[in-house]
């Protein structure tokens, strides 16, 4: 039997199984979306594949009843953890009226759902970073003890809004967790052409906050780092910068061809560290995941994804004239 790391973090067998289930659900929804795209049924996909461990590990370290999430476009694992459903995501993929993110107004991956405190996002990257700081500021003013988690890619950490937001949170000691999901590529540009420093987390010192780099393929490592950051935030000790290092297993989006800028060997090598594979192995090695449970989980997820796809495909589009609604309060 392998060393049980999750017990040491205070996580039960059921909790880590639930984490794995959410990671697997994200992966399977994502894979289905690619199929639907290639079959000509949905216009666009942008993937979470390779980042599920970081997304789910971070989310499960938070209080998902009161904390706020400001995800970026790859964060299917975050929004599923915060309460969005497979059906919600498929409705978004098909741009149907019932899509809770935007009612079919935005491309998939532009998450938002107020009832689950998933804050609406846009396409220009990193604009959500100051929003996370503002929400944390509001929480401090209102004497609440929630934290805000904001995620973005390593390329985005070059944007002014990252710098301005991180500095603001540092100065005002706000409970914000800045999590960089470093997947090594900003579309085609590798991290070596994005950063002059070794790690994104090296930037933390400039904002007066601690910075950590953790293995983004290890949900338990991410869980531990985010849990500590959340505790710091709730204790009034301010923000934290966490960099999770993994790999983008798919092209940037359904409109990209990554064969034009990276070698297959590199992708194949990264797939060996894929958290869906490695975390499953950990759970088997610690006796948490049995063959029977794994089959049960796979069957259940397959059914959820099938049902979500059917429902979304058959759901109605928004009425054309409804495009005129909600420019201002009505």
């Amino acid at each position: 039997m392998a060393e049980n790391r999750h017990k040491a973090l205070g996580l039960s067998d059921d909790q880590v199984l639930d984490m794995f289930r959410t990671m697997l659900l994200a992966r399977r929804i994502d894979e289905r979306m690619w199929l639907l795209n290639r079959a000509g049924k949905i216009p666009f996909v942008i993937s979470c594949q390779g980042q599920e461990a970081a997304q789910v590990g971070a989310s499960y370290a938070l209080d998902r009843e009161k904390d706020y999430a400001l995800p970026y476009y790859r964060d299917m694992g975050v929004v599923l953890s915060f309460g969005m459903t497979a059906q919600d995501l498929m409705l978004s993929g098909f741009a149907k009226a019932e899509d809770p993110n935007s009612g079919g107004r935005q491309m998939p991956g532009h998450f938002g759902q107020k009832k689950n405190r998933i804050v609406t996002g846009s396409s220009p990257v990193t604009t959500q970073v100051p929003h996370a700081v503002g929400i944390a500021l509001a929480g401090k003013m209102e004497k609440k003890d929630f934290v805000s988690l904001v995620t973005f890619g390593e390329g985005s950490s070059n944007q002014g809004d990252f710098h301005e937001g991180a500095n603001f949170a540092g100065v005002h000691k706000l409970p914000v967790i800045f999590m960089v999901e470093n997947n090594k590529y900003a579309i085609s540009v590798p991290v070596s052409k994005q950063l002059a420093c070794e790690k994104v987390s090296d930037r933390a010192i400039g904002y007066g906050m601690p910075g950590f780099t953790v293995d983004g393929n290890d949900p338990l490592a991410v869980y531990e780092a985010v849990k500590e950051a959340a505790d710091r935030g709730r204790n009034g000790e301010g923000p934290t910068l966490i960099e999770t290092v993994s790999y983008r297993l798919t092209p940037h989006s359904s409109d990209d061809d990554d064969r034009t800028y990276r070698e297959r060997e590199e992708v194949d090598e990264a797939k060996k560290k894929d958290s869906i594979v490695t975390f499953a192995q950990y759970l088997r090695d610690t006796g948490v995941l049995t063959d029977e449970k794994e089959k049960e989980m796979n069957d259940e997820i397959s059914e959820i994804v099938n049902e979500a796809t059917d429902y979304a495909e058959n759901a109605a589009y928004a009425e054309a004239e409804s495009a005129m609604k909600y420019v201002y309060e009505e």
Partner: protein
Amino acid sequence: MAVISYIQAVTQALKEEMKRDEKVFVLGEDVGKRGGVFRATDGLYDEFGEDRVLDTPLAESAIAGVGIGAAMYGMRPVAEMQFADFIMPAVNQIISEAAKIRYRSNNDWSAPITIRAPYGGGVHGALYHSQSVEAVFANQPGLKIVMPSTPYDVKGLLKASIRDNDPVLFFEHKRAYRLIKGEVPDEDYTLPIGKADVKREGSDITVITYGLCVHFALQAAEKLAEEGIDAHILDLRTVYPLDKEGIIEAASKTGKVLLVTEDNKEGGIISEVSAIISENCLFDLDAPVQRLAGPDIPSMPYAPTMEKHFMMNPDKVEKAMRDLAEF
């Protein structure tokens, strides 16, 4: 009714709204201890404390973006851009975010933020302390842009902006701050955003304008009245979205329309006003619609000769009004 200055109306509106609603707070550069470089937030820090009158780091995109985040949570932030010219780093936050948050979330989220900024020239402010920036934002559905001319309008419209459930850009003419004084009621009141206001009834020509230029037009109108020219003056007050009905009514009333702004001429607010008039009032017009505006050069130069050349003044307005009356 007390007579107060334009900037006192700003301060009073902020103070009264902060007293009325604990969710209202102010953030910006130097707004706290210093009370703002123009002193618009004077006294608020002492009364409400540093948590509600927040001196932020010098970073405009964060001032807007942090405010937007707080607004999405349910607060009522009033963000100050120290000069309208310095709003440019925040444009992405204002146009990509604030303006679209309600729409893109299908009414799930909203961003009730007010962003105040002093604009306008005639203060030796040169290229980067004199600009009018409203045209940058005036084709962005989701935003409202308010540009009041009098203390009464400032107070009523700033309160309305803070209470509005959508983002409002509130541009204050910096030369009007201490130059313009007027009566303001003691009791609480708001004015409707999106409604123009007739500042002078007249029957010969119509002047449609906003901001400090309203006063130039009023001064010119008094002079022209002695010559028997009776000017009707419409103050837009909200420059986006425009009060189409008010514009059509004012233009149709006299059939001779002069549009005035101190902004550059091409592509500005008055160009849109002109388009509304040409679409709706053709058979009521007795003269081509005239635009009087700043020249199409980047901004107001520093040297007094060149600044005066750019800046609108009562004489320029008077001449344009007389020419139109004589058409």
